């Protein structure tokens, strides 16, 4: 099937920003042409959704690997790639190469390295990288310790209207920590850092964003103190958004028991009280984005003593199902779930996608939100099965996925 042949989805429930409603949706020339009370036109390929949800393809904001099978399993049609690659995305040529790497059925939006080699001192060539396809600028999985560098970065990014994606953990406190300070880290004897390392970093980055006028996106905010800072900054009108991955609203540091390295994450898992603060912040709108943080890591990185293992989880396949647990628990409704998973990340990246509206790119997923399945680290589509949700029963699966109006096989 070519992208140019129009599709009409019938017998579906449309998840639009305004609500969930039965209807139909028609695509033409790779974009959404009409939705609602729509009938197929002659020559259309008609797809009977049999009552399934039709949702926007997920826009995964902040992944560490381009892992197409995992993204497609998870309903992800666009992914913003963190600059922590080998080699690091700190040159226009690398950005340009990555920007084309997934097409046509996965669009990768590179996030340019804020500083050369992510070293935290010399600014990257942001304007050139933007022209090469960068959709944002990121500090990587580390904090820029020098506040002067961070201010100049934000001023420059504000001029270019690039969102600044920051990793909010005060480096001096975080050090080589592998866990959050607390009973679990103490019992397991793991190097740990106080949870307050996050709030310290968030406070500084918000102050700098206010000074510079930059759009700041805190990729993961996982503690009550830091979420309070974001909440009050938003109330003041600061251009700050923040995200989280399902691990931090599903799990606490109890998951570290037995030195399970699949639960070694950055930032580390927190106490259950912090987890509940994250759930609350998703519910009240403080958290804007839920992303997978997809970072498949094989045994060479994970079959190690806990603190020697690399942080990160393969999260693309479980992103949708874990987010749907928030819907079933009544924390959010379906339209808001897809704002968190698609519309807001698309807006931050400045791409015409992420919601069911006329004129948007026809990145679509047919979803059965109730379909039960069991996460199995040995049976993952990802290049590695390092999921902290291994063995967990869950619900919600993608039945079919379309990028630019073409079905992904």
């Amino acid at each position, binding site marked *: 099937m070519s992208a140019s042949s129009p599709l009409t989805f019938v017998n579906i429930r449309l998840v639009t920003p305004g609500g969930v409603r039965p209807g139909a949706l028609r695509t033409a020339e790779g974009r959404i042409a009409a939705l609602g009370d729509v009938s197929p036109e002659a020559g259309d390929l008609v797809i009977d959704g049999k009552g399934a949800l039709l949702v926007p393809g997920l826009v995964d904001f902040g992944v560490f690997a381009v892992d197409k099978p995992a993204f497609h399993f998870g309903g992800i049609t666009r992914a913003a790639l963190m600059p922590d690659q080998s080699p690091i995305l700190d040159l226009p040529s690398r950005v340009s190469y990555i920007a084309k790497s997934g097409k046509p059925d996965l669009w990768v939006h590179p996030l340019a390295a804020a500083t050369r080699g992510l070293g935290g001192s010399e600014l990257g060539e942001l304007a050139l990288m933007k022209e090469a396809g960068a959709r944002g600028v990121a500090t990587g999985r580390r904090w820029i310790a020098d506040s002067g560098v961070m201010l100049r970065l934000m001023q420059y990014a504000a001029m270019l209207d690039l969102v600044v994606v920051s990793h909010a953990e005060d480096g001096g406190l975080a050090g080589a920590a592998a866990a959050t300070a607390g009973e679990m880290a103490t019992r397991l004897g793991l190097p740990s850092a106080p949870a307050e390392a996050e709030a310290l970093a968030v406070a500084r980055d918000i102050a700098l964003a206010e000074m510079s006028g930059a759009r700041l996106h805190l990729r993961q905010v996982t503690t009550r103190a830091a979420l309070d800072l974001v909440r009050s900054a938003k109330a003041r009108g600061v251009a700050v958004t923040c995200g989280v991955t399902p691990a931090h609203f599903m799990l606490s540091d109890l998951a570290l028991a037995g030195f399970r390295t699949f639960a070694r994450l950055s930032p580390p898992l927190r106490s259950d009280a912090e987890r509940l603060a994250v759930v609350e912040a998703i519910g009240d709108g403080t958290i804007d984005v839920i992303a997978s943080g997809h970072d498949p890591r094989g045994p*060479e990185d994970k079959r190690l003593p806990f*603190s020697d293992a690399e942080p990160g989880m393969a999260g693309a396949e479980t992103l949708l199902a874990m987010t749907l647990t928030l819907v079933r628990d009544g924390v959010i409704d379906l339209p808001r779930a897809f704002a968190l998973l698609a519309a807001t990340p698309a807006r931050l990246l400045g791409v015409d996608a992420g919601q069911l509206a006329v004129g948007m790119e026809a990145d679509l997923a047919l979803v059965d939100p109730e379909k039960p399945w069991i996460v199995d680290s040995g049976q993952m589509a990802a290049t590695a099965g390092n999921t902290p949700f291994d063995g967990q029963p869950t619900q919600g699966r993608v039945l079919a996925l379309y990028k630019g109006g073409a079905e992904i096989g």
Partner: protein
Amino acid sequence: MTSTGSSVGTGRFPAGRLAFPHRDLLGIAQLARHEILYLLAEAEQWVELNRQRSKHSDTLAGLTVINAFFENSTRTLLSFEIAGKRLGADVVNMHAAQSSVKKGETLLDTASTLNAMRPDAIVIRHGSSGAPHLIASKVDCPVLNAGDGQHEHPTQGLLDALALRQALDDRGEGAEDFTGLVVTICGDILHSRVARSNVLCLTALGATVRVCAPPALMPTGIEAMGVEVFHDFDAALRGTDVAMMLRLQTERMDGQFVPSPREYHHRYGLTRARLERHAPDALVMHPGPMNRGVEIDSEVADMIDRSIITRQVEMGVAIRMACLDVLTRSARGVPGWATEQAGGQWA
């Protein structure tokens, strides 16, 4: 009833393998109170043997014990080596430089290699917390944790309990466990696996445990392990029955945690004057190696009536003999100790 392979009288402990149903000894945290007491009771026979002129037993004859030490150690390695040899095992020491096992799969590859040589027990010391758990998942024989990172050092916790119980017995204050006893552990609690194993072991046996350190060397949330937290050593010592001193583990410190050894000694050093003032009857313990003049003064360390530091070392051999004996019973086919997988590694 057939022999359990144990010198322990019947009735006090569950029969056979039920007395100690673990394949590995990875930490005190995995042990119930009666399992700790069982290992202590088992060690008593080896204390006796170790005081004979001929210190040999054939209990582990024909078995191979590998001491795989990925971190420098003198006393613990020696203690395990002597323990294995006195039980008649073939003991092999493997010194692996920490640097060569930090990367990639090498640690598990090393474990596979050791496993392929069909040892009957592997003793692991490693600089990373949890390393023995990882190795235990890869090998077919019992694994004994001889100290992992900042996590646990279970045989140290056991030997300290045995030394303490004997010292109390000598004073006529002996009992099976430590109910009512107040123990103060002072020093670098944050970086100490000895502290964690001792906290778990002593609290399991009924003692009240105080931990004392400057705030930077006190792990967050340790009160959840059932201890009282002190930053003032004088207050912690007041009314204590045992003062267990730990050294500053500068090799694990990333940055400066105390201003100077002199200042540390001023606030946290165990001096004779301090001991006389706050705890004139207290016993003094130290897992070694000691930094005399920093956490403990020489005249305290060498007090014949109060310091049980050398007894701790002596009990170390007996405890390790007991652990090696108990953990290999299943593979040795001791009646009552069979498991479904018994002998599996030779199948």
